[in-house]
């Protein structure tokens, strides 16, 4: 497997009045294409900041973050202009948010179709809705869906653009255990079916057990990298 993301000495400082907070402090790691990666760590360890950097929605203070596209072109995320970042997010990145971030005025189908309209080589929205098991509720508005169902829509929406990397910020954080497992299964399924790189930020150590690779964050650094040659199945994990 080839590398898809290489991070070298990432630093991110936030200034809050006179206080400087080092959200990332010399973090380095490599992620390979098609990996199911979990980023673990306590609050304030820099995991969400890392996700934001990979997603191109925030900018590094220093360091190098490289992305290799389908043609293996090297793209320096940290040197991209705002305009190029927009294009990068559009073509290569899919987001799944903790609070789903569905657009309340749009139905299930419309929410997914929104991503389809933005994608360069998008997947069929109806098929994806089928796959996440919401065909029956295709015309429902988010307010009529449960949290788990909303997250399924969010996953379908993220995948619809056909991104190389799927970034998930606490995708099960707002869900009960049972629904959380369903969502993880769905993400694993898509990781395997579409061969997409999935990066999940979570507090939940159990999710790490099903991952190919686990990045442990502490004080803005990668404190440990764990590789699983044979990750567990969700039904093998004691949730």
């Amino acid at each position, binding site marked *: 497997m080839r590398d898809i993301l290489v991070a070298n000495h990432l630093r991110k400082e936030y200034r809050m009045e006179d206080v400087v907070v080092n959200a990332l402090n010399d973090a380095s790691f490599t992620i390979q294409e098609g990996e199911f990666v979990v980023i673990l760590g306590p609050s304030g360890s820099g995991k969400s900041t890392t996700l934001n950097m990979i997603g191109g929605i925030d900018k590094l203070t220093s360091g190098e973050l490289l992305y290799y596209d389908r043609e293996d072109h090297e793209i320096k995320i940290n040197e991209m202009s705002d305009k190029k970042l*927009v294009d990068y997010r*559009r073509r290569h990145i*899919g987001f799944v948010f903790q609070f789903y*971030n569905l*657009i309340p005025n749009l139905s299930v189908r419309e929410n997914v179709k929104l991503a389809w309209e*933005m994608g360069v080589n998008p997947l069929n929205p109806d098929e994806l809705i089928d796959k996440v098991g919401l065909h029956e509720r295709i015309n429902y508005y988010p307010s009529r869906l449960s949290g788990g169902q909303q997250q399924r829509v969010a996953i379908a929406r993220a995948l619809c653009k056909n991104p190389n990397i799927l970034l998930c910020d606490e995708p099960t954080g707002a869900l009960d255990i049972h629904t959380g497992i369903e969502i993880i299964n769905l993400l694993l399924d898509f990781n395997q079916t579409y061969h997409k790189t999935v990066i999940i930020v979570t507090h939940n150590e159990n999710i790490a057990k099903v991952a190919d690779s686990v990045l442990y964050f502490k004080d803005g650094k990668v404190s440990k990298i764990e590789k699983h040659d044979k990750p567990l199945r969700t039904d093998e994990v004691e949730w």
Partner: protein
Amino acid sequence: MRQYAKNVFRTTRKNIFVMFCVILIISFGVAFYMGFAFYTRNLHNEIERYFTECRFADVFADVKGIDDTQLQSMKEIPGIRDVFGRQALQVRMLTDDEDKVVTLYLLGYKSHDRMNRILLGDGRKDDIPSNCIYMGKSVQKVYQFQQGDRIQIQTNGTTYTFYYGGDGTMSQYVEYVPDQMMTVTDDERYGIAFVDENVLEKINGTVDSYTELGFTLEDGYQYDDVKSQLTKALDAYGLYSITDKANQYSYEMFQSEIEMYSAVANAVSALFLLISMFMIYIIIRKMVESDRSIIGTMKAMGAGNMELFLIYLVQSLFMVLIGVIISFIVAVFISNALYADEAEYYNLTLTDIQILPDVVVKGILLTLFTVVGATFLGIREVLQISPVESMAAPAPKAGRTVEFPVWLTGILNSRQNIALHGVFRNVFRSFAIIYSIAFCISSMVVMYAVSNLLVYTGSEQYARTELYDLRVSLMDYVSENETVSGLQNPYILHKEGFAVYDMVTASDTKSAEMSIMAVDKDSQLYQVHDNRKRKISIPDSGVMLTEQAARKLGVKVGDTLQFQNGEICPKPVAIPVTKIIEVNAGENIYIRMDRVPAYFGRELGINNILCSVAAGHKADVAAAINKASNVVYAVDTDTIKTAAYESYEQQYSLIRVVIYATLILGAIMVYSIVNITVRERTTEFGTYMVLGFSHGEIFEIIGFEQLVCYLIGLLLALPLVKVFADLFTGLLNTSEQNMYIVKVTPQDYIAAIALCGITVFVSLVFVMRNIRKVQLTDILKERA
């Protein structure tokens, strides 16, 4: 991005009432602009066509008398292309009502008139039968003569009988006033009439002698090029007055009316569009604020700023489209309604207005600018939204913390303290409410003041100036001691002499036909007031001019004016300008009656007598006066006031429409802003409810907040009133004829404050109704 556009449209739908109101406000603003532009431009074009059809002269002069050969010799003056003369005579029309004196300005009609043609209503082009009289449209409208009706006129003690032939118009006398004292027309008492010129010559006892002259100029020549030579040449024939087309009474009146309508319409449009711009800005900004997380998500998904901008702009364009359609329909309605009266009045051939494409384009651009401009201002916030905001629930905004004095917080209960801090916590939200209240109050105050100003101009100023009950206009000048038979009446309590002399008045640089009014030093019956309603004394020496007259003649205090009248002072008389006063309207020149001999070398006499009459005897006195043969007409002040009021009726109607529209507009704006700003806090109020606050207590919080905003808005309204008052003063004075001052009174404030207060209260009641409908379970489920 069609799906996101759907989202934006659906979000807008939540504010559908407000959006609809905004579109209506824009539409009315643009409709005012387009409607009045259609009206004034069509009217202008048609009236110009009417003047052209009448072969309106370039220069007009009144003389004592000139024959055709002498008149033709004026063509020798370089620049004069053609000349024209007409006989005219002031006569009295006898009516069944003995109390009433109706004065007709009788003009000779010839079918082959080359200039200033009289257009007969029945389209008649040939000569008028010798026993027929045609009446001006305005008089005819009052008396409703039928063809063949017997009409008697009287002059120099002889009565002549005619039969009514029809109506007609004459471009020089679209509105006829017999002398400069009458600044308004009274169609019941004065008017124009036409008889065959040969018949008029017989009545007049003069053949081939013209009193009214018209001149056309060669191409490339202006009035100033011929004025000096022409004035000198006409002096020999007793020149009373000479003026160019631009200053001819009817033409000038028409032009200034159009200017004023355009100015007021533009101001009203600007006001409406400013309000709608503000409202769109608030709505869009609030939409963006509430959609921060969604916009962040869109950005995280790869949406660019421009794409998001475009969606909001497309929505604006939709509003523009609806606004333009509505405004166009309203504009056509307004312009047709206004134009219909004028078309009938001027007997215009064009009966429906023509749609002017350039006005429509300007209307579209105006709408586009307002909506897109406001939208752009509102969505600038999109640029500030980072995709990171999609990743987490928004942190509570750092509100402004204001420390209030302990004595203040001590006297307020906890809800009132929450409210007080609430006002200053979100400055933008509070500013929106405060500004809408200030805007509403200040525009209402100024509208009331403008309305009062017009009422004053139309009626009250006559009551202040003209304190007599009756004014008797005499055929000839008489000495003040000379008695008029009717004025011996015992019911006349007090009488004063008064004179109006029509003069060619010239400064070093300009000249114009003006009237000089000679008034008693201590007159009790005629008092001059300026535009600040102050009583003004006529100076002991020299003449006093209104600012409008001074402008027209290009003089200032210390300059000298030359007065000349073919009959009473054939040689120019120089009088210094010693005082210039500002009045709302009127190009007047005043001199003290007792100073007239000192300047003119002799007593010129009086031609008007002002009388105050014992209560209940005005009609008896008027009837007695009317029997005197040298009385031309008698005017009572009530008639003047009524006529003046009627002449301003159209302007009153317009201002009334504007006042009502401003009221509705202000109410909509205040309601919308209060509604939007309170609704976005549903979660906050829901939380209060969960904590155990009653609806009454929540109403107290919101009510107290609005009260604080209202009081601050009131303070902000004070400077805004000054701005609006200055704006309207400037607009009303677009014409050099006017020098209005929009003066605000405490009553204007009280009315506006009360109305705006009621609006805010009603808005709160509606808002509370919405808050009562809030489902607490939904509130608790919300993310932020």
